[in-house]
């Protein structure tokens, strides 16, 4: 059936309108970041772009150090979570016991606990272990934070792998390690990749733990942005510039990886 021209035009206009509307806050933020503070409060589109705000933000805070911390703890947290989750999901998916299902759901429900509920114990543990304001501490907490979701997603991906193939591997002499490394991981690669991507995004954007457990040395971009929040609130341009710098890396990364992200999601949980 051929859609009428009118219908197609309507679809295109609606589609673009929705997209622009959803993107507007981000776009506006980027736009404002190129304004002077004077222009920023005028909500006007007529202005001369300037990098002044960026300059000021960079002069005030060591952006690169924050950004580096963000990259290290996000990647570290994700890798660590995957290292734990890959074998855990494997044993849950292929050697299930009567309690596996309950364990999995209980794990997910712990994710619903506000992190502040366990803040005090974690804080005390970290203080004892000397992990406060350390990247390792943050990596640990991020891995822990994302484990339930990572395990659950991997579990659903693993479930799609025909048991026969793993049994064939076992007949071929594969021990548990080769089975996971040579068969399971290559077979579920899209799923593992999208799980990792999701975990990476969640780590990057995490604000609670980073604010409470780090101060200067290991603080990631979420802390960086927090330092520009309330007291400087009215300096719209600087705020926008800082925000743009905090968001840009993960946004660009997200754009490039969204196809991969979607591919994994289609392959497992959704289909």
């Amino acid at each position, binding site marked *: 059936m051929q859609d009428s021209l009118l219908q197609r035009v309507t679809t295109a206009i609606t589609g673009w309108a929705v997209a622009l509307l959803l993107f507007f806050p981000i776009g506006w933020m980027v736009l404002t970041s190129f304004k002077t503070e004077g222009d920023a409060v005028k909500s006007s589109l007529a202005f001369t772009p300037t990098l002044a705000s960026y300059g000021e933000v960079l002069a005030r805070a060591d952006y690169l150090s924050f950004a580096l911390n963000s990259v290290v703890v996000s990647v570290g947290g994700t890798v660590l979570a995957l290292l734990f989750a890959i074998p855990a999901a494997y044993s849950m998916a292929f050697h299930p016991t009567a309690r596996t299902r309950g364990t999995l759901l209980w794990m997910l429900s712990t994710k619903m606990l506000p992190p502040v509920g366990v803040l005090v114990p974690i804080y005390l543990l970290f203080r004892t272990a000397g992990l406060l304001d350390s990247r390792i501490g943050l990596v640990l907490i991020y891995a822990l934070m994302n484990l339930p979701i990572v395990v659950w997603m991997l579990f659903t991906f693993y479930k799609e792998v025909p048991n026969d193939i793993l049994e064939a591997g076992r007949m071929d*002499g594969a021990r548990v390690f080769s089975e996971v490394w040579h068969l399971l991981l290559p077979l579920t690669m899209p799923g593992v990749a999208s799980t990792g991507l999701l975990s990476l995004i969640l780590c990057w954007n995490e604000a609670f733990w980073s604010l409470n457990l780090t101060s200067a040395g290991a603080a990631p971009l979420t802390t960086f942005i927090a330092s520009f929040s309330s007291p400087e609130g009215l300096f719209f341009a600087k705020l926008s510039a800082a925000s743009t710098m905090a968001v840009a890396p993960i946004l660009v990364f997200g754009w490039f990886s969204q196809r991969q992200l979607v591919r994994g999601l289609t392959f497992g949980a959704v289909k």
Partner: protein
Amino acid sequence: MATLTLRDLRKNYGPMEVIKGVSLDVADRELVVFVGPSGCGKSTLLRMIAGLEAITAGELQIDGQRVNELGPADRGLAMVFQSYALYPHMTVRQNMGFALRLARVPRAERDRKVDEAARILQLEPYLDRRPKDLSGGQRQRVAIGRAIVRQPRVFLFDEPLSNLDAALRGQMRIELSRLHEELNATMIYVTHDQVEAMTLADKIVVLQAGRVEQVGSPLDLYHRPENLFVAGFIGSPQMNMLPATVQEAGPSGLAVALASGTRIVAPVAAGSANQGDSVTLGIRPEGLRLDPDGPIGGEVRLAERLGGLTLLHVTIEDGRQVTVQIEGSDLTRPHETVRLSVNPVACHVFDQSGRAFTHLLKHSLAA
């Protein structure tokens, strides 16, 4: 290469016993087929031999060594799966060489063995393709190739042909027989298709509900079934089963009467049969003949003309339907009235518990 011994093997899933004590000897270089209806436990039994399912009780020996506790990789077996279970992310060459790679066999030797197996299976042109680019028959060959490369002590096949179309299945059957001869290997083959079992096996094991019903050569099972189940399961078209009553037990056999009163003498040892006992008379379709003087009368309902031979479906006097196998050149048509006679050699009698009375005539082809 290897012998295999099963001693009272049992398997429980929780309180459910699915393999209820199976004992069997597989000789070196023998091709043994496990056959039975779906759910009879034949695949479970194979997987227990493979090491993919734990053995609840009993003992499994390979070459006289107990292997219950060994993992699948350490038993020296190779298995071909129904779904082929090829590794989709590897090429044919990698698929076939995977076991050797895991065993850290040097690359050159690995390649040599894979090439050799590929030659036997005519897979050489496809070595660098991935499974998804192959046809069903080719995938099947790769699965077999993967087993050959390992030079296992015993080959296990789990319904390997059931995903192929009929023509290909026939072709692969011949190929498997050739392979068995060429490789000189001990093989265990699971199928639900009794034709496959008959054509491939040195020895058939008929399983039902987790128990062995009968073990023997294909023709043994065909001509001397020990019970109703085997008689009905082996042979196509199926054996005709008619309810009958014992009339007289004599030295030359058992005289039974069909429901219509027709008297037939079957050459079986009377054993403990008494006059008036209810029994089942079994006659193979080729054991019935069109004969104007025959004792059984009936009307032809349907003629299945297969060309070389024709199957007549005849409703006999007591209302039962029987299948009669006749020459393809015979011109008998539906709705004709016919009379049938019985070849005593093809007659079997089963008691109420389904056990066969011992045949008195020695069959030239059966043990």
